[in-house]
């Protein structure tokens, strides 16, 4: 089963929920945790994994074979991302703009383009708390494209039906979130009842509607803000699965690198119930 934890708004508690969920299920099922927030992964601060393997995340970028290139400019014309330019008799490649789509290679009439791997990040694999498979993607600082790192991180997963895979999504509602949500059975939306929380929740709901993935809401810092999230959830028939109160103990614990389960062990049973409920409905 593939469950993503997403939010729209940043700082609502995605990692708090995702890591606590992984811990709650660890004794009951085979659990894997994927940190897909590759621009700022932080699940390791809570689950404290030991990494055993690391590989490079790469994009295949074009390399022009100058002996065969006739500088016809076809590659420049077909590149949607302006990663190529024609200057005189030379073709320039701008690696940071390249999405690795392969259109230039495919369209080159002289077969003068070969593709070479351009490293943009890392993919790490390890174990946390003895039984949790821990996977982390990390985009190299100054590289602009997180999506390929997420795609390659998710490919490390070998499918097995008895496993629960938890994906800690990046904040926002952009390409990297879509890449994380692709293939999910269910999405837990962590939000807070503030105008920002609601605004971004609606954006994620738009994505989920297009992708046809079911979702439920966890209201974090319950008690702050207004009732607008609740009203919205009722109106669109989005179930509220859990509420976590605005609580000083939790804030202090999370700041010290503790999970919700470390702070309040009773949440373990609540998360188990929550997953049972999801499994029954999926």
């Amino acid at each position: 089963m593939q469950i993503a934890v997403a939010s729209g708004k940043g700082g609502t508690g995605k990692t708090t929920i995702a890591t606590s969920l992984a811990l709650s299920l660890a004794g009951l099922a085979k659990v894997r945790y994927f940190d897909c927030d590759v621009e700022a992964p932080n699940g390791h601060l809570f689950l404290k994994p030991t990494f055993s393997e690391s590989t490079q995340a790469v994009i295949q970028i074009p390399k022009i074979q100058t002996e065969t290139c006739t500088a016809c400019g076809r590659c420049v014309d077909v590149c949607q991302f302006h990663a190529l330019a024609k200057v005189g008799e030379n073709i320039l490649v701008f690696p940071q703009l390249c999405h690795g789509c392969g259109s230039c290679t495919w369209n080159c009439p002289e077969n003068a383009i070969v593709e070479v791997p351009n490293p943009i990040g890392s993919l790490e694999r390890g174990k946390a708390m003895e039984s949790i498979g821990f996977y982390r993607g990390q985009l190299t600082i100054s590289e602009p494209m997180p999506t390929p790192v997420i795609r390659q991180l998710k490919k490390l997963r070998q499918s097995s039906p008895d496993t629960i895979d938890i994906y800690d999504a990046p904040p926002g509602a952009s390409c990297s979130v879509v890449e994380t949500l692709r293939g999910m059975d269910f999405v837990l939306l962590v939000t807070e009842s503030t105008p920002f929380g609601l605004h971004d929740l609606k954006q994620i709901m738009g994505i989920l509607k297009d992708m046809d993935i079911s979702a439920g809401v966890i209201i974090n810092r319950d008690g702050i803000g207004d009732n607008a999230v609740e009203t919205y959830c009722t109106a669109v028939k989005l179930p509220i699965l859990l509420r976590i109160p605005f609580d000083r103990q939790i804030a202090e614990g999370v700041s010290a690198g503790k999970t919700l389960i470390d702070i309040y062990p009773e949440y373990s049973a609540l998360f188990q119930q929550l997953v049972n409920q999801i499994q029954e409905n999926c």
Partner: protein
Amino acid sequence: MILLISAQNPALESNIDNRFGRSPWLILFNTETNQWEAFQNPGASQSGGAGVAAAQFVVDQKADVVLSGDFGPHAATAFQAAKIEMRLFTETTATVQEAVDHFKNNQLPKFQ
């Protein structure tokens, strides 16, 4: 000599635009004939790679010099490869006509 100048509107009286890749207009000015022509900047509407798109256009116009407020790393790489000189507006450059005049008087610094 062919100059390309980033501008907010398609006219010599138009204000210059300090952005190169995303200025709405690029004004081509021929210093031999004093004739000019305005082109929509192909970079302005791109979601990404605006600098390269705009630079490719300038290269294709066979420009000798490009005038703007600044140049990003991608555009600058392309202009260096194409041996097109990059010049920067100064604080007193307000309109496209002034940019041309300041260039002619050699008052515009080179982009390094």
